[in-house]
């Protein structure tokens, strides 16, 4: 069997009349850590959302394969059950559903197995402890009244519990202090067992120092302008993206 986990080929996507992704291709193999960087408005979140099948974007061209299966026409829940997870840049608040019940329902959905309350709770608490999250948050309504940092941890908690094959983290490290970035990176590290993969969307080096990426992709104006090794991160950190667009114009 092939070790390719995700294969995105020449994806074009738009929202309304606006074309945002203009032919993006990307291959992620099992066990790899990929980074997607790029200036604000480049289309990074759109790319993540398109992989997750957000109904607000129309894919006009291209295909997405996951573990060899064409999932281009599958809905978000079907893709999630295959093992794709996205940590939202903007987590949604849902008053009336507790964090615990939400994760338990999700876990039951992705595994196809009923989750006995006590056993599940024990597991959930161990993930919460590792993320330095107060256990009382399990009984609170999903993301309601959570601070920015707590929302990010809630996303990583969901990732930990669902154990996806591919986790896409959309700026999960943004707005976090040094300690929180460390806790989040450790959470991601625990997921990485050589088989599972991550795609990290970030502007910062800190999370990358902890996670040692294998590949870096730079998205500008809806196109990937460069695929490279980890050394690119430092160049971007010191020089920004401008040189890239100039180089691409040559």
């Amino acid at each position, binding site marked *: 069997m092939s070790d390719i986990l995700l294969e995105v080929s020449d994806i074009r996507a738009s929202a309304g009349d606006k074309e945002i992704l203009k032919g993006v291709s990307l291959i992620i193999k099992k066990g790899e850590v990929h980074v997607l960087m790029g200036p604000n408005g480049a289309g990074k979140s759109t790319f993540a959302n398109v992989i997750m099948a957000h109904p607000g974007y129309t894919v006009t061209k291209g295909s997405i394969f996951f573990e060899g299966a064409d999932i281009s026409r599958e809905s*978000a829940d079907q893709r*999630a059950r295959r093992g794709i997870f996205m940590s939202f840049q903007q987590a949604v608040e849902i*008053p*009336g559903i507790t964090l615990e019940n939400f994760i338990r329902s999700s876990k039951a959905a*992705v595994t196809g197995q009923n989750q006995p309350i006590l056993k599940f709770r024990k597991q959930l608490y161990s993930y919460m402890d590792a993320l330095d999250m107060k256990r009382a948050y399990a009984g609170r309504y999903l993301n309601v009244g959570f601070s920015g940092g707590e929302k990010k941890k809630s996303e990583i908690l969901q990732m930990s519990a669902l154990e996806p094959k591919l986790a896409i983290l959309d700026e999960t490290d943004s707005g976090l202090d040094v300690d929180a970035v460390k806790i989040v990176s450790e959470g991601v590290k625990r997921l990485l067992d050589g088989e599972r993969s991550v795609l990290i969307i970030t502007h910062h080096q800190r999370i990358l120092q902890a996670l040692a990426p294998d590949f870096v992709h730079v998205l500008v104006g809806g196109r990937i302008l460069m695929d490279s090794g980890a050394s690119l991160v430092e160049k971007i950190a010191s020089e920004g993206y401008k040189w890239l667009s100039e180089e691409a114009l040559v």
Partner: protein
Amino acid sequence: MQVKTNVLPAPTWRYIGVNYDTIEQLEKFRQGNIMAKCSDPAVKAIAPEKIAESDASANCGYMIDTAELSGTLRIEYFSDGGDLADYSIITAREGTDAMAVFTCGGDVHFHNGLTRIIAEKNSRLTLIKIHGFARSEQAVDSILANVGENAELNIISLELGGAHSLTNYQIELDGEASRAFIDSACLAKGREVMDISYRINHRGKNSVSSITCSGALKGQARKTFKGTLDFRKGSSGSKGSEIENVTLLDRGVVSRSVPIILCTEDDVEGSHAASAGRIDEDVLFYITSRGIPMEEARRLIVFSKIAPVVDKIPFEDLRDGVNIYLENYMCD
């Protein structure tokens, strides 16, 4: 004969159709077996002659004195096809803190319930009402309450439909620093018609109130919500708020909202907010992105709208009953 009910305190254009609702007055009670079950032996059933004395016509009811209660009171009415008219009086005695849960089940052709509440000084009473476990053609539920000095009345009400259901709660905040909070959730489907009227009259100084009404409408259900906060003379320093939130699951539903705030006193604060809309796409995407199928996600969202009310029901079998109701509600 038609009788006007839930009359709006300040009428508006007639064509909007919210000034009042009408019900069919009964010529005669339809006979059937009415069962009433009460969890606390200290609570006395109201004798039929007593009911006749009060000008309410009723065929069952209880006289409740919170000083005599041991624990949460539970009263269940059940009818197998007859008309049900229950009439209860709750006296929340000075300094007591009590909770009562009223439910009604079975097949009720016509249901008329009236609860009279007198909340004495420094008392706290929480009354939980669940309507709609019973199948009914026409249901009217009324609460008439007087709240004394520094007393608190919490009404938690779950409206689960019925062909035509009316709710009429009127609360008099008589005492200084008296408080009333109504927290209700409703689900209507099919061709059900729901008319909800809450009226809180602030009379005492520094009295506080809030009304929250949330829920969902499906099919061609119609709901009218009338929430009135009336700040009467002498109610200076009082505050009240009302919030209504309705999720519209189908295009054929009608949701009408009439929040009214009346002030005859200057130094008061009244506010209202209403929102009605379809299920938020971003919320649906968030839930489905975790592997939960669309239908289940919609059910979760509807549940989330009534959950803050359901979570306050202190009996598991009743909470389970609501969940089963919701399963059927979503499938219908």
